[in-house]
């Protein structure tokens, strides 16, 4: 029963985020600040993870396709498909749920504990719009990060394949170009946008409605990460079934 109430409260919160907007001049600076914090500040970890994940996918695919009848180009094909369809959008989103999600929960939660949210409310500011809306807009740039993750992941796979001796460079690149379906990129970006909304709002919900002190801020961050991951995994299944199934 508590979960149903929390889900209802979450949707009410999302509705409230879009009501009574903050003055555009102020909102613009908040959005730019959040883009810097949430997207630009996460590029390092996204590039690092994508590069090595791409490499690992290539190595594991190569080790499992050891029949001489299977062309080596399939290693490039499998790496491309795995990275574009799953590793870039979903794996990076789980990482972002930890990095960005905990930042959002703890920053909003600390504002709650120190009565800064009450101060906003008393002034007549729509605190949800002021705090959460810029994060949602900033996260609309998340597919850009995912595009970089795709590129770097495939690049990592090529490096591991060519320099690790698992697939010749030419064969790997031939595989990358094999049976390319542009809709898979669209599917991946749709997933990234949906996950971006989840990463911006679920941790905000946990931070905004938290009660207690500093210890509870930590607990709320952990809970937010767990629930954001759960929602991403469930939505990943639903979107895949709807768009590719």
């Amino acid at each position: 029963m508590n979960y149903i109430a929390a889900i209802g409260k979450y949707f009410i919160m999302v509705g409230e985020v879009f009501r009574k907007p903050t003055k555009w001049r102020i909102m613009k600076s908040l959005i730019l600040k959040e883009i810097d914090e949430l997207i630009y500040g996460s590029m390092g970890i996204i590039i690092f993870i994508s590069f090595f994940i791409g490499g690992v996918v290539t190595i594991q695919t190569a080790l499992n396709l050891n029949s001489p009848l299977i062309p080596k180009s399939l290693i490039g094909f499998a790496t491309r498909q795995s990275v574009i369809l799953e590793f870039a959008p979903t794996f990076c989103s789980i990482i972002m749920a930890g990095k960005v999600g905990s930042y959002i929960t703890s920053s909003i939660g600390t504002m709650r504990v120190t009565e800064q949210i009450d101060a906003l409310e008393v002034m007549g500011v729509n605190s949800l719009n002021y705090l959460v809306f810029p994060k949602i807009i900033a996260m609309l740039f998340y597919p850009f990060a995912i595009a970089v993750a795709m590129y770097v992941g495939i690049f990592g796979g090529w490096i591991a394949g060519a320099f690790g001796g698992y697939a010749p460079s030419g064969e790997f690149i031939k595989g990358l170009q094999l049976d390319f379906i542009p809709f898979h990129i669209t599917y991946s970006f749709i997933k990234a946008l949906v996950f971006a909304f989840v990463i911006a709002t679920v941790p905000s919900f946990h931070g905004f409605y938290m009660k207690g002190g500093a210890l509870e801020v930590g607990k709320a961050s952990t809970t937010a990460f767990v629930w954001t991951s759960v929602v991403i995994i469930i939505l990943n299944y639903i979107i895949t079934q709807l768009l590719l199934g």
Partner: protein
Amino acid sequence: MIQVENIHKSFGDAHILKGINTTFEKGKTNLVIGQSGSGKTVFLKSLLGLFEPEQGKICYNGEYYWDLTTAEQRDLRQQMGMVFQGSALFDSMTVEQNVMFPMDMFTKQSISEMQDRVDFVLKRVNLIDAHKKYPSEISGGMQKRVAIARAIVMNPKYLFCDEPNSGLDPKTAILIDNLIQEITKEYNITTVINTHDMNSVMEIGEKIIFLKNGYKEWEGTNKEIFKTDNKAVTDFVYSSELFKKVRQMYIEERN
């Protein structure tokens, strides 16, 4: 003027406010006192509209707060200034930005007009060299003064303070009390202060209400609190030996 009519507030099974009636007059420093857990903060947050009472009414100059639309409530809140117990300054903003924030949000003034007003209110609270500092870089007393400056920058009709001198040394606490009283008189606003600081009670308590277990136990002025025979009030106010002696001297002098 703020009229409070029979307000009740509960959280789950805990009945915090149990039918409080009172009136807070304009141009006076109204104090709400009581032990920790007596319901003072819930009462103040109910006055601010942060908590909705289950029963009873809160009336601001003839307007019942909870009968107003959300937009009207937000407009009314813009006429309120609040000094929180922990100051509640925005960590990511400088002192100047904190004070400018309400004007930046709700007025169409130019940057130079806002800057002039910020300089004026910061000077009014005796803070001159802290404009570019962050809240973490200034003392607790200075943070309180910044909070007061932020609360008065929009020329509010109502000023609320939740334990404004908690955690401050006695000298700074008196400065803050005097500052709030001066501002109340100067701008003719309705000020409500939550406190359990006895110096504040004696110095600036033009009207005092004493809460006990969610009830209004007593109401009067700082002159009347000396004379009252209400045991709950005397137990609370004269809990220290010093104040007991002061009261004894007062009674002996009177007799």
